[in-house]
């Protein structure tokens, strides 16, 4: 009697691969059927699913510890404050930051970048200064800079992309100059999958005295990130893309910069002393955490980080390199399908955008949904990039820890069937 493939159990320790099937079982939402088919969730770049441990932690917090933080002297207030503050330490350790005060907990990447653009930008950007972004930015790391440049009559410059979706650093010396005050770039593109050479660009920027912001929304969930060696000054990410609750995120910033920054939003919890005519601000990080935050979400976020660390970020990255390699191979066998981004899985993540010359991405998405496959179709909040790619929209399949090659196979089969269905 021979073993069927599904009988082979690969344990985590003696394989470089994760066992996606075992992982999938921890995510209740993934066990359902959609339109009569087993759900294949490939919209992870938009938001990841949540393991039972995270869901349980939210419920446990509300059932046992719920109270506002930093303001009560009773037992529950102490418990919730401790849980909240211990997540801050957890996050700091996760990104190799030595000082948890440098970790500002907020609602996500969008809030974090706006904070930098308004608080740091208001003070340091003047008429004629240059702000550098790249052509592949998500609107979250684009619009705040467009608005800041307008407000300050500063110049917005951009690092262009190559035809295979990498940053084109030829001529970077004309883009990042002594006039450059800030460089903002994504660590990993949500459309192209490209992992950008953040350290290299940060080094150039620092030579010119500029500050560097990296949008890590797509990077932190998928690879080890160490802010102590990355070389940037600010780093941002969102919990919901890394197994955590929605409405929670992180702004990491160097203490010497944060210390000198004015608050972006004002109100409760972020002050030292308040008079009718004068207010002094709290120390960091509280200066940048006004009002009652998403306490339960933050507490749940710690459970998400636990889950990721148990798997190991190196292994997660390795797993995704393998899936990306397989997905690129299989998708490129489909006639006429156009795939965006680098072809080398070593320099990209597992968000794969593609278009079919004959079928609009919305029709692709609707068809795949009828087969139980969830992908994203649209402009992915990166309209300027899509314009450069010459597309109004793309379809995007993005993979995570609970996906494996069988999900790629389901996707590829469905696309082939779709082409027959539409008669193209």
């Amino acid at each position, binding site marked *: 009697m021979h073993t069927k493939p599904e009988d082979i159990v690969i344990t985590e320790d003696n394989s470089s691969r994760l066992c996606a099937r075992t992982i999938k079982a921890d995510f209740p939402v993934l066990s359902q059927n959609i339109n009569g088919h087993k759900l294949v969730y490939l919209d992870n770049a938009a938001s990841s699913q949540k393991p039972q441990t995270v869901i349980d932690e939210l419920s446990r917090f509300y059932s046992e510890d719920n109270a506002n933080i930093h303001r009560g002297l009773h037992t529950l207030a102490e418990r919730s404050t401790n849980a909240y503050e211990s997540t801050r330490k957890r996050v700091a350790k996760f990104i190799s930051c030595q000082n948890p005060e440098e970790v500002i907990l907020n609602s996500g990447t969008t809030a974090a970048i706006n904070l930098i653009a308004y608080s740091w930008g208001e003070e340091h950007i003047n008429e004629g200064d240059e702000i550098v972004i790249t052509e592949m930015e998500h609107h979250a790391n684009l619009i705040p800079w467009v608005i800041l440049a307008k407000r300050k009559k500063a110049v917005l410059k951009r690092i262009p992309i190559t035809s295979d979706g990498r940053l084109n650093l030829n001529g970077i010396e004309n883009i990042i100059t002594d006039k450059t005050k800030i460089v903002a770039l994504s660590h990993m593109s949500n459309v192209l999958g490209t992992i950008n050479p953040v350290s290299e660009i940060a080094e150039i920027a620092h030579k010119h005295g500029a500050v560097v912001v990296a949008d890590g929304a797509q990077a932190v969930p998928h690879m080890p990130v160490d802010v102590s060696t990355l070389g940037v000054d600010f780093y941002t990410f969102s919990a919901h893309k890394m197994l955590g609750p929605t409405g929670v995120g992180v702004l990491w910033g160097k203490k010497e910069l944060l210390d000198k920054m004015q608050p972006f939003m004002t109100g409760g919890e972020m002050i030292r002393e308040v008079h009718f005519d004068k207010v002094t601000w709290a120390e960091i990080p509280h200066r940048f955490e006004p009002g009652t935050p998403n306490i339960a979400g933050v507490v749940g976020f710690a459970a998400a980080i636990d889950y990721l660390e148990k798997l190991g970020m190196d292994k997660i990255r390795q797993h995704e390199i393998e899936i990306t390699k397989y997905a690129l191979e299989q998708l490129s066998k489909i006639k006429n399908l156009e795939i965006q981004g680098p072809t080398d899985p070593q320099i990209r993540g597992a968000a794969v955008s593609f278009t079919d010359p004959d079928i*609009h991405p*919305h*029709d692709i998405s*609707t068809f795949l*949904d009828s087969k139980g496959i969830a992908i994203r179709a649209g402009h992915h909040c990166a309209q300027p990039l*899509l314009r450069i790619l010459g597309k*109004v929209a793309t379809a995007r399949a993005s993979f995570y820890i609970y996906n494996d090659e069988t999900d790629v196979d389901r996707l590829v089969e469905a696309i082939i069937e779709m082409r027959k*269905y*539409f008669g193209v």
Partner: protein
Amino acid sequence: MLLDDMYRDVILDHYRYPRGRKPIGKKDFSSIGHNPACGDDITIQIALENGNISEIFADCKGCAISTASGSIMAEYIKGKAVDEVKEIAQNVRQMLKGEPCDLPDDMGDIDALEGVKNFPVRIKCALLAWITLIEGIGNYESGHADEVVVVSTEQGED
């Protein structure tokens, strides 16, 4: 989910072979529609003769549903009186939104669009051509035919 209920044969036929794509000579009014959610665009140009639509150019760049909807519209409204077309377009809009409507018995291929209403995220795709037509006629009636109206599916349409 009944995919075939939305992508009916008639719809796929209009998608593959869209009608109303031949440029027209003179035009009496035109309008442009845009669906920012997916980037679909439509340009409509209409020529009139004695209050009837004598020629129509409807160029839709987009998904199967918006393309087919534009094609069905172009085919159906040709030769009809502007007043009547406006009434029909408003009723098609209501039909797509699942509201009570009063459509004539002979709807041509319009009834093939009915399946779209069961796919809420795709209703705007089907609406684009019709709301663009309604705005174009409205503009013409209010004496601004020389201006091209630009319509967005995000303006009060949901």
